[in-house]
């Protein structure tokens, strides 16, 4: 197990390094923070002074190595645009993203998995066909368009839910969260549902195909022959065996939601990190973009690791040596 962990760590640090080079040099090639930050009444002298203060007047390699040595000391740099430590900006916005991401993933699991098992078990029923139709639709609607539809129906026509923003927050262990008060919760619903629809469809399909496969395995036939009740059959023998792909995908999807809910966050003006990433790319705020993507790589590494550990728990045949 230890050597497995160490190997993973080694691989991920190489990954982080490659990522930092790509983003750092990529941002340098396409955009110039001085040109974006300087207003039209900056004189050339003002622009040169600004470049010096941002440290972007130095040769690119010098900039990159000073960045690396700072990261090694735990300093991810200072945002060009906000003149604040990058980590502060990201941490400040992380709770908003996390709560919506977890709500969406939770909805996906709670609704999608039972629906998938149901349609896997009752393949010929009419309700199964309509579930299958709905998942196809839910899969194929573009995310931003679906978001605008949700706003149109629930905010503009029915006026049940607010169209955008985060609403009131409640402090939980010093972290502002929305889900503990009514106003905040009502702001959370639309973005979370927008993210969840796709997840529900996916979990339904995963659970259904898993169910169809597992139900015809010899051990299931045997269990049925033994006279085990249907409820116990589904809970003990079926559910456990279809979980492995679901856990894998859920892990990756959680990572994807946290890292790249940019479209949903932008449309709903949800002040999360996805919106920060998009704004920073627009503003040529290289330190934020680089640090953000490095953190995302690290997060995926951790999530994959947790998924691997879960495998071993779910399937006794899997061992890491």
């Amino acid at each position, binding site marked *: 197990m230890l050597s497995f962990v160490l190997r993973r760590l080694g691989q991920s640090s190489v990954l982080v390094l490659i990522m930092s080079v790509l983003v750092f040099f990529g941002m340098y090639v*396409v*955009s*110039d923070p*001085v*040109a*974006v*930050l*300087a*207003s*039209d*009444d*900056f*004189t*050339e*002298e*003002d*622009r040169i*002074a*600004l470049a010096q*203060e*941002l440290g972007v007047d130095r040769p690119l390699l010098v900039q990159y190595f000073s960045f690396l040595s700072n990261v090694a000391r735990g300093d991810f740099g*200072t945002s060009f*645009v*906000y*003149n*604040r430590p990058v980590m502060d900006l990201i941490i400040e916005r992380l709770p908003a993203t996390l709560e919506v991401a977890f709500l969406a993933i939770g909805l996906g699991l709670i609704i999608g998995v039972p629906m998938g098992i149901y349609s896997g078990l009752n393949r010929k029923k009419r309700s199964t066909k309509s579930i299958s139709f709905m998942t196809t639709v839910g899969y194929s609607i573009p995310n931003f368009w679906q*978001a*605008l539809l949700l*706003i*149109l129906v629930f*905010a*503009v026509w029915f*006026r049940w839910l*607010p*169209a*955008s*923003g*985060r609403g009131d927050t409640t402090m939980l262990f010093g972290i502002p969260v929305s889900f503990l008060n009514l106003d905040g919760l009502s702001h959370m619903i639309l973005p979370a549902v927008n993210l969840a629809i796709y997840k529900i469809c996916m979990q339904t399909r995963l659970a259904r195909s898993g169910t169809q496969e597992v139900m015809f395995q010899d051990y299931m036939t045997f269990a049925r022959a033994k006279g085990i009740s249907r409820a116990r059959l589904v809970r003990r023998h079926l559910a456990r065996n279809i979980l492995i792909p679901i856990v894998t995908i859920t892990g990756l999807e959680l990572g994807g939601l946290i890292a790249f809910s940019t479209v949903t966050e*932008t*449309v*709903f*003006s949800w*002040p999360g990190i996805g*919106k920060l990433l998009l*704004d920073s*790319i*627009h*503003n*040529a705020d290289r330190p934020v973009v680089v640090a953000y993507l490095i953190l995302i790589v690290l997060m995926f590494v951790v999530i994959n690791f947790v998924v691997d550990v879960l495998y071993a728990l779910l399937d006794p045949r899997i061992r890491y040596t």
Partner: protein
Amino acid sequence: MKRTLTTLAAVATVALSGAAQADVLRMAYSSAPRSVDPYPFGGATTAGYKEHIYEALVAHDDSPLLATGWTWNSPTSLTVHLREGVKFHNGDALTARDVVYSACRMMFKIDGKRNLLTSSMGPLTDVVAVDDYNVRFDMANPYPLWIQKMKFLSVLPASGADVPDGPIQYDAEGDCGITAYPTRDDFENGDAAIGTGPYKHVVYEKEFAKMTRNDDYWGAPAKWDGVEISSVSNSGARFAGLLAGDYDLIENPTAEDISALDRNDDYTFTGKPAWRTMFVVLDVNPEGANGVSAPDGSAPLADVRVRQAMSLAINREAITSRLFGGNATVANQFAPAYRAGAPEMPALEYNPEKAKELLADAGYGDGFTLTFNAPSDRYPGGTRVAQALAQYWARIGINVELNTQPWSVFAKARRAGDMGAFFYGWGHPQGAAQMISFAFASRNKDLGLGSSNYSNYSSAAFDAAMEAWAVETDEAKANEFVADAMVAAMADLPGIPVYYTHSLWAHKADLTVDGRQDERTSAFMVSKK
């Protein structure tokens, strides 16, 4: 028990009706104000937000605000007379000392980085409190523009920092013997967010800000009990928020949004001609321009006839009426003709036949190749206008390739001088001269001219007029110099003016919006019918 319940119900009713009576204006901006601290950042939404709380010596329309007037002691020294009886939100009275402190704070480098508004301070060398209500600004070079630039200097109370007793000695590093300035956190939690404005800071969370009326305001009291500013960058979501009742007013609705309002009695929109001139910059360098090539290897854009032909090819009327539905104004010079100080200029002709003749005279009867660059995400409707311009030029035989790119990429290429022809918009608090002094004058470090001369334009007549304007403290004379420069630039066309933008607001039908030219959205311009 029953009695308690009744009392509770009564209290609740009173509380609820109280809440309903409070007139709170809820506005949605198109991007989040970057800071409560008035100095580090520019930008329309940051500026629009902060002017609710802070005021400067000069108002947005160059009229005195916290000042009552000013006197030029010499071309390099200005004394500004302060308004008496003005109080900060913390109860302190405004004096000249606060102005000196604010100038120090403007120049102070936070974590070694200058505030982005610092450039407005130009060649200022000293700021002196002559007495409580007179403050003197000394300059290294004549800097008449300071009258207009003073609006960047939001005035903060000196009591907000650890200022030693006695007069504050200004220095350009912003150190001024002051040991500790308020930090960003002090501003964001409201401790240092103290100005003299009609509204007081309540909450600032970037995408959401809240303010309440300043009951001790020195001028006419604010119209709203409170103001809430949300920031929704996606225009579709912003408009949906308006229709959903989340906001009373939104800025920058799209052309599609406006046409959707035609069918809706509850909402309407207000437009106001704004200060931004949209124009094409042409690199007139005789050695050639990037992305521009002719079969014979010459530099087409260096020939004034070619530039005139490109201007004649454009049907400006069609652009403003078709692409903007009338919510844009045809341009005839490099500053909105309706802006104070703008000279009288003739309308620009649309005549493709004449354009073709001019091209033939110049030796480009068979056309030439031109790459036309435009930012894709910067100006409302900008991409469509760029396409239209490319088509107009194609009609007179120019082989145009349109290249649109995101602003951050475009801005880099512009600064690097990589674009021979590009589309740009310029709007700024300064009057008619500001843009041409940067974009078309020859570089002059001392007078701050020509820093954005990507046209590589150099004209003796134009430069002489601009250099005279830069040091002229008499407004009428300065305007004459601007007119001379504008005439020279419009004859030589180092760029081609196309149209002036309009600012738009969509809002509830029971509100009246008295918009401003400066693209800002504020509660001051909104009132109930």
